[in-house]
């Protein structure tokens, strides 16, 4: 499975700071609208759900439709509360998950 690229704008934050997360993951995001050479519809296969947790608590999530571009990019913020693992999870239509992790230190 693809390894997501994740970037936090700061690895160390003060409590209450906003931390910006940028993440990119390689995925075809097949829309289910395209047809192959023989005219058959290529079945839909997208990442339909994205969540971000910090120390197991959800801070942001999104539902994606086929209108999200291939190799989906997502950028969002969260408020730093405690040190811990920032875990990003993308869920595929077939149920498989792509997971990436970064650390944040909050002082």
């Amino acid at each position: 499975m693809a390894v997501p690229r994740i970037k936090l704008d700061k690895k160390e934050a003060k409590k209450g700071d906003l931390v910006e997360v940028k993440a990119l993951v390689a995925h075809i995001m097949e829309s289910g609208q395209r047809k192959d050479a023989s005219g058959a519809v290529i079945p839909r296969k997208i990442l339909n759900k994205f969540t971000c947790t910090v120390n197991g608590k959800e801070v942001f999530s999104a539902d994606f439709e086929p209108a999200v571009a291939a190799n989906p990019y997502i950028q969002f913020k969260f408020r730093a509360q405690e040190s811990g693992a920032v875990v990003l999870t993308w869920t595929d239509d077939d149920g498989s998950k792509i997971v990436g992790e970064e650390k944040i230190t909050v002082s």
Partner: protein
Amino acid sequence: MTLILNRRQALAVGAGAIVVLGGTAGPAFAKNDSDDIIKKFTGNATPQQGRVKLDLPEIAENGNTVPMTISVESPMTAQSHVTDVLVVADGNPRAGVATFHFSPASGAAEANTRIRLATSQNIIAVAKMNDGSFFTASKAVKVTIGGCGG
């Protein structure tokens, strides 16, 4: 010199093709089920204009990947925050684009992603607040090369 002329000619032909495409696809603004999706999201409430900011290019050269930023004015405290933001596109084969879920832990109701647009159309964002009110904004985007593999 001849090379430059050829290039210019090629460019002129290309521009002509874009104009023709725009002429057929642009003004049609074929409506899909975007209104129904918004009604379902708001529970038939009419969202107010304002507070939502939708940032997209005026003209997208490539509809396959159009950068989009949504932001909603909100203190994002436990008392007053944005819970969900729905984004729909009224000219795509399917209207749904994405739904973003926020909480006070998000700190800011802001998100950026890249979307596909099949043709020139309006993008509409509707934000749901924790007090049950809805705010909306829309933006028209001209697309020169459609996404969705048309």
